[in-house]
């Protein structure tokens, strides 16, 4: 862990009030991760339906959840402050719902202490693109649409 990381994370483990900037950082991070999660599920759904000789577009998703396609485009492409209801709708439109698990920062970051970009081999970097890679939420989809 670098000095700056240690300084940034220290208030989280101190038991004292967490600085507003830290709260903002993690809120933004969660939005970015949720957007990536929804985008990944959309891509997965597209792949599954393509394998069955069909298409699944954002317009299809929008129609299923009674929303405009441009809104779905926004939600898929942008780390906005998604409402819980919207998140539920988006996933249900893909016949899925999320499972939840908390990752404790002390454990997760401790495991990654030694990690540096230089240490990551090319193989590791590209295997990490695998859609099955760990994400903050997992999803168990129902059969393809």
């Amino acid at each position, binding site marked *: 862990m670098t000095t700056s990381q240690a300084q940034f994370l220290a208030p989280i483990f101190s038991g004292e009030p967490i600085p*507003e900037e830290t709260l903002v*950082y993690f809120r*933004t*991070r969660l939005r*970015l991760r949720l957007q990536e999660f929804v985008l990944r599920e959309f891509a997965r759904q597209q792949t599954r339906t393509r394998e069955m000789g069909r298409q699944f577009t954002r317009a299809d998703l929008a129609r299923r959840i009674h929303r405009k396609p441009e809104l779905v485009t926004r939600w898929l492409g942008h780390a*906005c402050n998604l409402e819980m209801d919207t998140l539920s709708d988006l996933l249900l439109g893909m016949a899925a719902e999320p499972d939840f698990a908390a990752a404790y*920062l002390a454990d997760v*970051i401790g495991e990654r202490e030694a990690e540096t*970009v230089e240490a990551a081999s090319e193989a590791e970097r590209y295997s990490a*693109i695998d859609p099955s890679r760990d994400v903050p939420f997992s999803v168990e989809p129902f059969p393809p649409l």
Partner: protein
Amino acid sequence: MSIQDEIKVLCGNGRLLKRARNAPRGPALRSLYMSTLRIDGYPSIVDKLGDTSSSTQTRERWSQAAAYLDAFIERSSITIPPNSRRAGYAFMSRLEPPPEELWDIRCFGPKPGLRIFGRFADKDVFIALTWNYRENLASDVEYAKAGDRAVRQWGMLFASYFVGNYPDDYITGAVLSTDL
């Protein structure tokens, strides 16, 4: 000298700083370096990220920017537009030339957000050069000025820049927003 060697030298003399994620989760898929140089009176991105004396609102803007920079390093997918005129809500965009090969990371919150300008030194290696608040980029003229500043800063660091086929030569995991 290879671009990687140039980056090492620039890190060695303090002109570049490799971004270390605030709270690493998962492997680093890409690298991001930040210029420490100031230009035209603008503090560097490094200055702004570490500035604890600014207003609460400003610090929060930069906390969000930090999350975007870290997301660039660790996200498996990066949304980009088919062209910058239709960037919409893409995470990154390559700006329409001129100037050539200039990209921005588009931090949307808190509204109106801010932009981090930079260039790729290699695939998945981004050099963040300059920044501007989105409200100061309302016109093409202001964007051009911001672009010019970033290009001049690049010239203070590197002699040449990376050019590739859009988008896969630049970013692993690029997702064109038209594919959504």
